[in-house]
């Protein structure tokens, strides 16, 4: 049915997402889902989008980025700012969301591009450390940002909302650490699913294009890539920018799933960046389908199933697990790394695999 192996593999990936949507959407609309599970559907989508976008940097470009939540933050705040700002100008909330989506993606792409210029000169650990720093900078900048509007126009301050000198009927849109309140909760599982499909589509198509080949050739051997005339800087920036843009898309979905958007270290800080990285590693570095599945599985296990089990009876182990999710993630990360990359495990796996083959 399909021309080659990759086409078939991609069709499976799209199929998984579409099947999940086909099953969950009618159930959600018919009210057959518990509210706790229903509330997890949109997070599944944005976590998967973020994992897919980070996989483009980590798995395809081959550079470790620890500031991915920063780009998500840019997308979330620029789009939420736009949808709130235009609330009384554009009546239809879906039109507003769509325009906000485009703006969120454009801004995070721009920030990704600008940060990429200095960051991509570095390699390996150094690059990771600097992306981490930029991620934190974005989060902290947003926390001191105050923007308000009144009849005289838009006011801007980095101090507090009083320094905006708004007229009495003016409104504060971004209030520093209090963030943006009263966002329309436009995000739905349908929109999330469509955006996830779009993200997967863009990344998979990019990988199989001439540009993707160039990006992966840089990952595999930079010197050889240069020797055959591939512009290393250009393609590194391209991959980094697309990755940031898609993270911004995840941020837009995230922002419009909440009534109040604030930038804390929990949602846009280092923890979030590492969590996305855990999804990528768990799903397989360079494996896009894995990045779609891993966040769903992890969240389902550590959020939904854990909560259900706790309802059955209080248990100190379960309590500990739900209180220390980051610790669980860290342990999962360590186990996965040892299982997949330690030489002894590789040897053991190969021995097992070969024995299975002989029996056939």
């Amino acid at each position, binding site marked *: 049915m399909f021309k080659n192996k990759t086409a078939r593999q991609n069709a499976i990936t799209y199929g998984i997402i579409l099947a999940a949507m086909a099953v969950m959407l009618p159930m959600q609309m018919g009210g057959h889902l518990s509210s706790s599970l229903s509330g997890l559907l949109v997070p599944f989508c944005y976590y998967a989008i973020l994992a897919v976008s980070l996989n483009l940097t980590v798995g395809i470009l081959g550079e470790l980025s620890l500031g991915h939540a920063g780009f998500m933050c840019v997308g979330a705040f620029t789009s939420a700012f736009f949808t709130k700002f235009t609330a009384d100008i554009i009546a239809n909330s879906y039109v507003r969301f769509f325009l906000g989506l485009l703006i969120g993606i454009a801004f995070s792409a721009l920030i990704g591009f600008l940060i990429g210029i200095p960051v991509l000169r570095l390699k390996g650990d150094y690059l990771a450390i600097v992306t981490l720093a930029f991620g934190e900078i974005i989060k902290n900048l947003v926390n001191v940002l105050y923007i308000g509007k009144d009849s005289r126009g838009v006011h801007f301050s980095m101090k507090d909302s009083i320094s905006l000198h708004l007229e009495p009927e003016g409104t504060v849109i971004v209030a520093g650490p209090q963030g943006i309140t009263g966002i329309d909760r436009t995000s739905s599982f349908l929109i999330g699913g469509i955006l996830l499909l779009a993200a997967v589509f863009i990344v998979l198509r990019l990988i199989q*294009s001439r540009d993707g080949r160039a990006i992966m*050739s840089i990952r595999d051997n930079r010197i050889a890539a240069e020797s*055959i005339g591939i512009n290393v800087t250009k393609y590194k920036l391209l991959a980094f920018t697309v990755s940031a843009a898609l993270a911004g898309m995840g941020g837009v979905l995230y922002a419009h799933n909440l009534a109040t958007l604030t930038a804390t270290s929990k949602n846009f800080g280092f923890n979030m960046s590492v969590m996305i990285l855990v999804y990528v590693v768990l799903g397989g570095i360079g494996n896009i389908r894995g990045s779609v599945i891993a966040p769903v599985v992890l969240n389902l296990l550590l959020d939904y199933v854990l909560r259900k089990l706790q309802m059955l009876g209080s248990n100190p182990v379960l309590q500990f697990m739900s209180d220390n999710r980051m610790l669980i993630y860290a342990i999962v990360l360590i186990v996965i790394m040892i299982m997949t990359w330690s030489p002894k495990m590789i040897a053991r796996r190969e021995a097992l695999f070969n024995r299975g083959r002989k029996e056939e």
Partner: protein
Amino acid sequence: MPMLEVKNLGISFGGLRAVNEFNLSVEKGQLYGLIGPNGAGKTTVFNLLTGVYQPDSGVIRLDGEDITGRKTIDISKAGIARTFQNIRLFGKLSVLDNVKAGMHNKHPYPPLAGIFHTPAWKRTEDEMTEKALKLLEVFDLKDDHEYLASNLPYGKQRKLEIARALATDPKLLLLDEPAAGMNPQETKSLMDMIRFVRDEFGMTILLIEHDMKLVSGICEGLTVLNFGEVLAQGETGSVLANPAVITAYLGE
């Protein structure tokens, strides 16, 4: 006009004069060898020719065009392709994609064409695949085109590197120790292949090699480097008979 003309090329690393007053002239379609003891500066010459290092002095002309001081990617676009002493393939790409990556600059399509799969994308990609498979057939790699490059055996990896270099459609091919690590039989078939590439593609080839059998077997001209300086230069037979060359290789 020679295909490659190098005049008074030189570079220093700190206090060390790695290459000094290097002159070379390779005619179009010639198979030319660059030999010398370990550390003589052969690979440094390759790195100077391909823009990995910038020379302190001298001029490099490719087909009459001055390419001195250009960046690696511009030199690739100008028409020099190379292989590496320690193989540098794109290990996690398929054999076919390694060759297609080599065609990157010669077969462009608009940036979004690959996302939306426009007719231009389809036409270009099909064209590249067809060309790449033809090239792989020459190197006896067609049956392996779906494998990852890192899974190929050593000898085939060497061949694939040459195929990838040829995919850039170069005027001049630089081979850095193509026979390194090969047994006599493999070396023999490599010699036939290099000769075939020259005849089939009308390629000008400059190669670095330690294997004297290979050098005396296929090279029409030779330059011997020793301590960064040209020791002898000319037609292969006479250079190899030169007492200074024998001394440099075998000692007093």
